């Protein structure tokens, strides 16, 4: 009887966790989508704010980190852009789109480092 209760409690906690995660992802996704729409309109600061909110809500959301990397790059914040792209790639190492964005960014960033050196 006791073990049945434990199993039920574990199941309940697991389902709650899944629900919470799904809610977080859903909220983060809403921020990401809004960020995309404003970025397409050229409002990059607002987009940056939205994607920062998205990664705060769900730090495991690779697409949000990718978009944040792009926004930082657009603002000339290269160190932050590098960190955001690398975070996105850590989360989804096989995502070719993130890899392509990262490679393009690195091309510019490495050239700047070379010039500085």
């Amino acid at each position: 009887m006791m073990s049945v209760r434990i199993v039920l409690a574990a199941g309940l906690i697991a389902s709650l966790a899944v629900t919470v995660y799904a809610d977080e992802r859903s909220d983060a996704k809403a921020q990401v989508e809004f960020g995309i729409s404003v970025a397409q309109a050229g409002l990059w600061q607002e987009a940056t704010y939205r994607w920062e909110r998205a990664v705060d809500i769900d730090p495991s959301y690779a697409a949000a980190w990718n978009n944040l990397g792009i926004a930082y790059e657009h603002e000339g914040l290269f160190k932050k852009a590098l960190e955001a792209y690398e975070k996105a790639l850590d989360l989804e190492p096989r995502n070719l789109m993130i890899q392509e964005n990262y490679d393009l960014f690195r091309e510019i960033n490495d050239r700047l480092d070379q010039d500085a050196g």
Partner: protein
Amino acid sequence: MTGLTKTLGSVGLLLFVCACTNNLYEVPIETPLQPKLDVSAFQRVLIAGFVTGGTNDVDANLETARLLRSQLRTESRLDVIDSEVIDLFTVAEDESAASRDAPEVESTEKTTRPNADELDQEEEKTLSEEELEAYEHIFANVSYWRQLGEEHQSPLIVTGTVYFTPHQRSGMVTREREIYDDFGRRQVVPIRAYRDRRGYVLSPKFIFIDGRTGVTLYTERYREEVLYDVSQNTPALSSYFELMDRLLPSFLGALSDQSIRGTRMLLK
């Protein structure tokens, strides 16, 4: 069964591509680049002149000064000073003559610098890249550059060396060739062939000097080359501009904000 499998596979692939495409948004971005040199203290820029070597087919001193001035007029906030382009060979000659009068300096520097007679002879012939280096002492003459700066209201001074010379190289090159098969279909295939090619090498060194103090602030060196088929008779001046065109963005990036345009993929 196989046909059905293929069809289902194609539909699946199409759905996958659609799903992916719906989550991708290509956006144009402009990556801003900060100038490599802080020029906020300057209102004006003086393209003084260059010590040049290589071919005499192009007056690299005059052409470089003219090109950089016109580029800076449109790409930089600095006022470009219109003045005669300085013949730095003459300045170097005077400086060498002055140092020859000072025996203690002569004894230590004779090994590295050509004397006035040697300079005269070298003006007749073209200077090699190594020989150009012997004139670089002029850029360290702080009092000369400070005085020049005073004459032009303390601008940022741009000077340096420009080496532009013909160049030849032979070897295997890959080219694309159009062929048509028996059905008249066009194909482009790579063909490797041995070719003699001629062109030019451009190797400038730009030196940025503070006109208030005469001190060198920043130095940037480039090397670009272009090769053409021997049958192509490209004028030296065209090649010079072609090569300068490649390094101008980097030169301008030393003084003014630049941006690189590109596209990135936003993801949902």
